[in-house]
């Protein structure tokens, strides 16, 4: 942890999500931004015990991990003085109104709802041109905040990966759709029950490999069924921040990128940023209440740029040759990739600016990237890669979905294998 400057502001943020309560300590100063946490406690625990006791246990755990004294004589230390070596300057509570009367900090806390917090965050991010869309795939709802036709838009779909996961199963056909995203065989009745039980016990941790695959299959179908009609209207790609429990806790961000590609089917060049600490709502809550105090927050540490994706569009069939991609990393030699329709290519070039040159031999193109000349159908584009590099997607649009068969499962495996090179950030 770095030195605390005189101007440091410490925020205790408690986000009472519908499934899990997150405790964060945000240290904002003129030089950097440090986020401590999250400390997580399932929300239902607050209904099974004294919420105030549990609240202070959460703060205490945060105190220990941040190595900063936050509680003295069972009282939360809150002071407006910024040069203190203990306590916080502000307390922000997000949602969880049912618990406020029982919390002994409610008098001094400022409150915000999850929706207004995320809206404030997106407004902040888009003003800074950090991104032009924010997707929060939560436990009880999926929230889209995005720019379109020069306006900030939002859509809240009441389907999520936890408390409202059951509603994904409203139609028989939906279960088949979910099943096709899995690399292993599973009885459809069993899959339905596993997903339905997520709405009964949304706080449980998917600890087996298959659990995570099911979770991402669910995310894909949620995205496919809830995506706003005008989300990809301009079809030239987006810079998107992805948030939500299923996203943040997923250990392999490459597969989050694949899930986004499968669920949203974006075209053009897209930059994917991930809310790795599940801090989006909390930061939004602070921005909503104290915009001037967090204007210098280092966004790249909170929402790191993980991947850049380039989608090759056009009319082609699987296996057809589409031409070549030449990647210039700034050295003399270019890396050449022969592009074949129906594939995913991962270039693990961490956080670099590189020049991509596509030379298409077929009816292929990249949305938003005009050809250098119609004669040779070449595209040259400077691209900033994410921490996990670059993905070139030649599977086509609309995406040919994997079938419910051994062949379909093999196809899913090959897509995952193309990206599943390593398991950490």
């Amino acid at each position, binding site marked *: 942890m770095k030195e605390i400057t005189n101007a440091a502001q410490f925020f205790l943020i408690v986000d009472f999500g519908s499934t899990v309560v997150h405790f964060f300590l945000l240290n904002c100063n003129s030089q950097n931004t440090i986020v401590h946490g999250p*400390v*997580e*406690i*399932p929300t*239902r*625990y607050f209904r*099974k*015990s*004294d919420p105030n006791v*549990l609240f202070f*246990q*959460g703060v*205490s*755990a945060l105190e*220990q*991990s941040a*190595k900063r004294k936050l509680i003295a004589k069972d009282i939360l230390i809150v002071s407006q003085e910024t040069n203190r070596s203990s306590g916080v300057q502000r307390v922000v509570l997000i949602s969880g109104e049912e618990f406020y009367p029982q919390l002994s900090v409610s008098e001094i806390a400022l409150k915000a709802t999850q929706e207004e917090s995320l809206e404030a965050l997106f407004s902040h991010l888009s003003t800074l041109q950090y991104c032009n869309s924010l997707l929060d795939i939560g436990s009880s709802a999926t929230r889209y905040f995005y720019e379109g036709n020069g306006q900030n838009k939002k859509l809240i779909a009441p389907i999520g990966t936890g408390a409202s996961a*059951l*509603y994904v*199963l*409203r139609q*028989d056909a939906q*279960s088949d759709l979910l099943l096709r995203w899995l690399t292993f065989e599973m009885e*459809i*009745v*069993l899959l*339905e*029950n*596993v*997903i*339905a*039980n997520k709405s*009964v*016990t949304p*706080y*449980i*941790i*998917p*600890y*087996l*490999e298959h*659990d*995570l695959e099911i979770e991402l299959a669910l995310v894909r179908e949620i995205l496919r069924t809830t995506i706003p009609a005008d989300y990809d209207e301009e079809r030239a790609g987006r810079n998107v921040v992805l948030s939500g429990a299923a996203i943040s*806790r*997923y*250990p*392999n961000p490459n597969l989050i990128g694949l899930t986004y590609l499968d669920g949203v089917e974006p075209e053009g060049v897209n930059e994917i940023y991930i809310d790795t600490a599940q801090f989006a709502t909390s930061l939004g809550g602070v921005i909503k209440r104290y915009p001037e105090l967090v204007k210098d927050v280092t966004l790249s540490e909170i929402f790191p740029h993980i991947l850049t994706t380039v989608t090759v569009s056009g009319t082609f069939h699987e296996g057809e040759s589409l031409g070549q991609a030449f990647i210039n990393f700034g050295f003399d030699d270019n890396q050449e990739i022969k592009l074949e329709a129906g594939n995913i290519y991962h270039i*693990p070039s*961490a956080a670099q600016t590189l020049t991509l040159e596509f030379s298409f031999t077929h009816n292929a193109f990249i949305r938003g990237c005009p050809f250098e000349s119609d004669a040779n159908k070449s595209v040259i584009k400077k691209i900033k890669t994410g921490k996990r590099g670059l993905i070139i997607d030649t599977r086509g649009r609309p995406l040919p979905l994997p079938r419910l068969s051994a062949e379909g499962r093999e196809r899913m495996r090959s897509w995952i294998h193309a990206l599943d*090179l*390593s*398991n*950490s950030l």
Partner: protein
Amino acid sequence: MTMKSNNFIRKNKALERTQDNRKSLPSEKNVNLLVAEKTGYIPSVTKVIIRKLPQKGKIWVKEGETVEPSAIVGISHSSPGFRVFNISEILEIPPEKIFRCLVKSSGSKVFKGDVIAEDKKTFGLISRQFISPIDGIFEMVDPNRGQAMIQFMPIPIKLVAGVYGQVVKIVDEQEVHIKTTVDLITGALGSGIEREGVLRIVADSHEAIMMTNLDRSLAGSVIAGGSLMNKDIIQKAIALEVRGIVSGGINVRDYRSLVSSLNPIEDVGISLMATEGYGLGEIPFSIMEVLQKYNNRFVIINPRDKELIIPLMNEQSRKKERGKLASQLHYIKNDVTVRFLKSPYLGREGKVVEIKKDPIIFPSGIEAYGVVVEMAGGTRTIVPVRNLEIVHHND
């Protein structure tokens, strides 16, 4: 970057983090080791039970009064419908002449066979009569057209207290709120409206309810048992006028075929409660024991709150009342009995034999606090603390 080097970095990071935690938090105070108590059975809870007439009527008790379960606390009359007749056509007379032919006045009680109107012709030698085909209340509806109506005789509906307790509120000549002590069995999911009946155990906890378990003698009862209630069982129960089913689980596919919206407040003519969740789920032994104990007793199934309410008798109630519920959270310890909340062991129980002091990386790659649980037969498995609930604790 190779997989090996990345994993190495990850593990080191995890180690750093866990060392921090170990220094700072004694394990018994680590919030990550908190586990909720399984609340499948909550004995002696003070609860206000709302007894409700189907429509406004007369309430026979007063606020503050103590009532016995068999006490009738109110009455209302339901009208099961009416029939319309055209007396003018039946008697073959113009509508304006009907009033002089009426034998019964509008609003009077009539019984099957009573003469309601009579028209005598030819000095009384020929007569036409309108005879009531049912018991009911006669009313003229439209004298200009000669139409009359007989409302079926209202059926008195007596509201029984059902519980021993004190009347705390009366609402709108329709509801009686009785404060009482009950035992509660809580479930994972419920569907339908509140219903009541006599509890009848129809199957053991480990087997699915079979068609042969159901017969006409179960009409009006709340049946319980079994690890699964399927669509056919539910439909047969509806046909037999069973009021509710409490079972271990239900396949979401069967549930959807009954309630297409999957909205639990939608009623399909029967109230359902699953103690474990969706899919096959054995009712825990501790709950089955309670159900067995209260077999043939009056119960209320409240799917909205996912609970089966077992009102206690006068004596039991006095003996057992204990007021406020204690905290239902505990720090996990060795030797406590826990229950799995997730497949592949959903609903199974085991004993904690080892608590991992640091977060561990599970096969999915997710890092979380875990414990080793030993199940019957000696099988051991390591699971995240959050995926468990405590069945028996030693606090």
